[in-house]
């Protein structure tokens, strides 16, 4: 199994972007790039080829689910796993995100000390068997 190293974080809230960077880079030891919206994320994902994209659901411009669809349309980003991050916790919504191709969903607010491990677990779970 390939270890999880590079994470592209797409999030319009700059405070969340910063705390996630601490959580992923310093606590988790990952390489992290951040973008503020889906439109910037598309070329960035293509150029940087992250192992995983952490995508906020509600964003101005194009939202998370639309960004996911666009990523799947681009040849070079088609197979990059996407994990959604959302403050909504309706169980049917989570099912919906999985159905449209998200690897999993991380619930906001996240615990900065636990986020990296959460992503590692998602990564391991999805690569087993």
């Amino acid at each position, binding site marked *: 199994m390939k270890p999880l190293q590079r994470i592209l974080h797409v999030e319009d*809230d700059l*405070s*969340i972007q*910063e*705390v996630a960077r*601490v959580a992923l880079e*310093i*606590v988790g030891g990952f390489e992290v790039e951040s973008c503020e919206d889906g439109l910037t994320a598309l070329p960035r994902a293509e150029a940087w080829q992250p192992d995983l994209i952490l995508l906020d659901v*509600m964003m101005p411009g194009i939202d998370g689910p639309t960004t996911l669809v666009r990523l799947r349309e681009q040849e070079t980003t088609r197979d990059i796993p996407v994990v959604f991050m*959302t*403050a909504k916790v309706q169980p049917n919504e989570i099912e919906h995100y999985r159905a449209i191709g998200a690897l999993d969903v991380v619930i*906001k*607010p*996240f*615990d*900065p*000390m636990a986020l990296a*491990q*959460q992503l*590692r*677990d998602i990564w*391991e*779970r999805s690569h087993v068997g």
Partner: protein
Amino acid sequence: MSASDIETRLAELKQQYVLRLRNDLQTLIAQTRVMSTREGVIEVGALESVRQGLHRIAGSAGSFGYPEVGRDAREMEVWLQTLIEARGVPAPSMLGALHERLRDVHRLLDASPATVVREPESGYRAESGDRAVRVGLLVDAERESLTQALAGFGYECRALPQDATSTWQPDVIIVDTAGQYATSWQPIAEQSRHAVRVLLSDSGDFAARLQAVRDGAQGFFTHPLDIPALERRLRHLVSLPQQDPYRVLLIDDDEALAEHYRLTLKRAGIESRVVIEPADVLTGMRDFVPDLVLIDINMPDCSGPELARVIRLDDDWLRVPLIYLSAEHDANRQAQALAQAGDDFLVKPISDVSLVAAVTARAQRSRQLSLALARDGLTGLIKHPAIKDLIEIEQSRSQRTGASACVVMIDIDRFKSVNDTYGHGTGDYVIRLLANLLRQRLRRVDHVGRYGGEEFVAVLPSCSLADAHEAIERIRVSFSQLECIAGDQIFQATFSAGIASTLDWTDAEALLEAADKAMYEAKQGGRNQVCLARPEA
């Protein structure tokens, strides 16, 4: 970067965040003020902007150490979302309520320190103890009698708030799914999403129970209500989180791996002790009294199942689940091991989160079982033999740390005459009244046991004699003011108490005796008072 550097960095981010949070809240307060005073139509766009603001706070505040602010914002967001989706234009007064609640949140933020630091468990500090458990009712037929009965047990009952801006948030909600709320209760109950749900129904068949579980019920009762059973359930539900950390004994010959598991569990708040040598297992069990044992099955001198059988030879450990942690993938060999002894398998390698989840679920079950076995049926308090064990544990902890712990003996005054005058039913009621009061007023770390008929023992860890005196004295005054109801008569009951500190007596037996002696002094001094045990100079 070290752990403390990370803490520092997070604290810096938090300081920046709180500035923004204040700003955002002020904007929302201004927006809702304008809307609540406007006479004309409120634009959906303006409402949507408020909702987005709340959504941002709901999703972020928790990550920066303000979970309550986040939860409040979430509740307000859900409320507003419901309004927007229904295309209903809210009345200015509703937005006024939202405005007020936002101001409350803003005040709360100002009142909270810049860095939230957990206070150490020292001195006597009241927790939720000073307030009664709140029960929100959405019940029609039996509302009056239920409110009265539960109030008698010390619960604070009110009709369930029907809008999210209510500042009274219940701990438990009781919903009658059979009566007038049969079709309308869910959205109302959603407003109290953090409360534990107890559902009432006309039918007790399997389908009704399954539906209740799907509706998020943690308690289920049918009409006519068995109020004592309902009260027992409530007590059980609200006392669940008041627990010591789970304790896990790890038996593994791979020291490094065992240490990794220990640290993983520790991060999740689970205490564990590692045993490397199989021969040390029994001492480990006796000293540590685990809720659960994790065994690595492929050890050289002695196999896991053999070890499990050794543990199972002792009746004391029958209740403790034995879980194999093993690289054994073969289902047949797993089955063979389980046939000999042991309760379950966890297969290595296991992710940290899965380990914590598996251990927590099983330890919780084990804890519930031990509680059920060690609890007094009438009061739900710890039984006599178990409380003696606790006194010994606190006594030896106190000797290690040098901090005082106190033992309190409590005896209801003239209990025999209560029984003789009003009957045994009323006597039981007085005992439960005091049991509830003790449970509510003492801290979560304190233990309360029923020692005999009308006698109670409380064990207060990390507590000086003076602090214990003050706490018990307050409870004494409250109890003496409670009105006990027997038919159409109202009377007051009192208790006498004696307190002894572990600093003055180094032997558990002597400590208990000293508290008992002090309690008799209180009786002789005229009852309804608290005496302290002083060692003879």
